[in-house]
């Protein structure tokens, strides 16, 4: 029996949403070439959605191990602050990026230590950094919004290469690299095994604790890079607002993308589509003239709908409505 692709539903949702937009506003899909750069709503969605996508990439692995990381929004704020302070001090871009990535890795390691080694519940463990992290970010920038004037840094989020925006390309590259690293090696299998049945994985000789810890470290690194992109995007480090609600969008993207919150099977591609779906939804709201503040409502309804579809009980009801074919035993 071939299992249906987990990407199918979010993809259908995305296509439906895009079609809806295209009908409402025929200019929605229009992409223009201006000064050798691509412009248009789809390009905007990709650019604006790239940070959520990146955070959701790390979140996918954490959720696949059966955990969750609530601290990513705070980590985004921290690394943005680190970048701003270092660039203000006229440090090199390479050092700045390395420091930001390092901050993300440290944050992820702290979460991994608490969850995998000390056995603290993931929600509880990552809540600590979620609370303290934003304070740390504000401490780093001393409560100021620091303007960043560095063309090379700016280029990361707002530049174009061969007419294409840099940030989405960068994120797409990371998705591809992660996908290959997980699926061309056995790492992906190990993560899915630990998320599916941790005891059985341990008994099969896998280093379950180490695998879980690594997922948090990777998630911290992704959030760190997303923090760089966020700061570059607005050319400033805003420790108060950077990464706000990003953990929610990332979790939503992962769940909508077909990775169950209970862990196990994950889909990196599904997450990418889930993140785009959420960004498109936000853009749609904007185009329909809905005030941005109300945009969370459809997101909330979407997530309740998706989690109900994944719930066992509903599955049984629907299973009764559409009997599925018996599999060969």
């Amino acid at each position, binding site marked *: 029996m071939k299992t249906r692709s987990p990407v199918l539903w979010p993809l259908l949702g995305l296509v439906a949403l895009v079609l809806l937009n295209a009908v409402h506003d025929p200019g929605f899909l229009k992409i223009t070439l201006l000064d050798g750069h691509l412009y248009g709503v789809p390009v905007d969605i990709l650019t604006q959605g790239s940070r959520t996508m990146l955070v959701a990439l790390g979140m996918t692995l954490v959720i696949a191990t059966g955990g969750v990381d609530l601290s990513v929004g705070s980590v985004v704020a921290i690394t943005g602050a680190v970048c701003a302070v270092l660039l203000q001090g006229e440090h090199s871009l390479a050092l700045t990026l390395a420091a930001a990535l390092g901050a993300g890795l440290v944050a992820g390691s702290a979460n991994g230590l608490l969850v995998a080694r*000390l056995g603290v519940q993931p929600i509880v463990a990552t809540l600590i950094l979620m609370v303290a992290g934003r*304070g740390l970010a*504000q401490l780093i920038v001393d409560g100021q919004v620091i303007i960043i004037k560095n063309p090379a840094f700016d280029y990361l989020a707002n530049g174009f290469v061969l007419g294409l925006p840099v940030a989405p390309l960068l994120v797409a590259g990371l998705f591809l690299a992660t996908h290959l690293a997980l699926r061309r090696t056995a790492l992906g299998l190990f993560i899915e095994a630990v998320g599916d049945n941790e005891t059985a994985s341990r008994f099969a000789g896998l280093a379950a604790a180490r695998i879980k810890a690594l997922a948090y470290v990777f998630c911290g690194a992704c959030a760190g890079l997303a923090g760089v992109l966020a700061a570059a995007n607005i050319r400033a480090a805003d420790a108060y607002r950077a990464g706000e609600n990003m953990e929610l969008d990332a979790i939503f993207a992962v769940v909508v993308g077909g990775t169950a919150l209970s862990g196990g099977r994950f889909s990196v591609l599904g997450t990418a589509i889930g993140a785009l779906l959420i960004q498109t939804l936000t853009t749609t709201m904007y185009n329909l003239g809905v005030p941005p503040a109300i945009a*969370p409502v459809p997101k*909330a309804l979407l*997530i309740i709908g998706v989690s109900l579809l994944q719930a066992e009980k509903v599955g049984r009801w629907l299973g009764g409505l559409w009997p599925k074919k018996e599999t060969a035993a």
Partner: protein
Amino acid sequence: MTKTASGVSRQLPLIVTAAIFALLFATAAHFYEGFFSARVFISLLSENAFLGIAAVGMTLVIFSGGIDLSVGAVIGFTSIFTATLIEKHQLAPGLAWALGLAAGSALGAGMGSLIHFFRLPPFLITLAGMFLARGAGFWISTDSVGINHALYGRISAYEWVFGAVAIPASALFLVAVILAGWVVAHHTRFGRTLLAVGGNEQSALLMGLPIGPAKIGVYTVNGFCAALAGIVATLYTGSGNPSMGLGLELDAIAIVVIGGTLLTGGRGHMLGTLLGVLIFGTIQAAILFDGRLSSWWMRIVVGALLLVFILLQRLFLRRK
């Protein structure tokens, strides 16, 4: 084993929390002139009244092993909802409050039902609830609405004068809610059932306890508390604002944990939450008194306290 010895060991987290509060307050009193006064002590309560009320509901939810991230958003929603009803629709404040409390409770009941009947993770469903409530609040109005009703002025100006001490209405509200929460948590079947469910749901089932009503009930009660906190916040600020209570759920959870309640459920005390509010207030007041320390130290210190308490709880449980 003597009775007192066992009582002491059972209340150990509460005692630790009380000692931390005493230590913090004494340290602040030592460093900052005028800190050691009834006025400051009362301000710890009055300045954090609506946060404290939300924390009372959160305590009950955490007792049951759940979590509710929607409380901040419900505060914002209730605040703008009641303000709009009073100012734009000329509703009597009492009626507006009743409607606000009903809306908060209904949202809680809905989330509790989803969590119980479909076995969905509380944090995800209450996240969705948070988005819903926040969105609904902004849908009513994106700007804050001032309330000019006479009753509001009277309540916010009210002080219960007790000798040389004047206690503002908001502090009285908080104390009343904590007392009510204490009665519910420690002197009703509902409260004990919550602790049993949080301690071991399987056992609670085999003991024949009403798990469904308890779980749905606790999110309903918490929705009610959040709405009440929203009303108190509106009284305190004299206006309704849809962005009120942003991120407040984190502070409420932190207060509950600092109060010695186990975040995984099954163990805790409502008086711990009172102490948690006092500790939170003391840190806040100390930072304010100092004048040199910036506000973000608040979050860092609260985060550090969270870390310490969670590690202590791990240690405490592992030794058993």
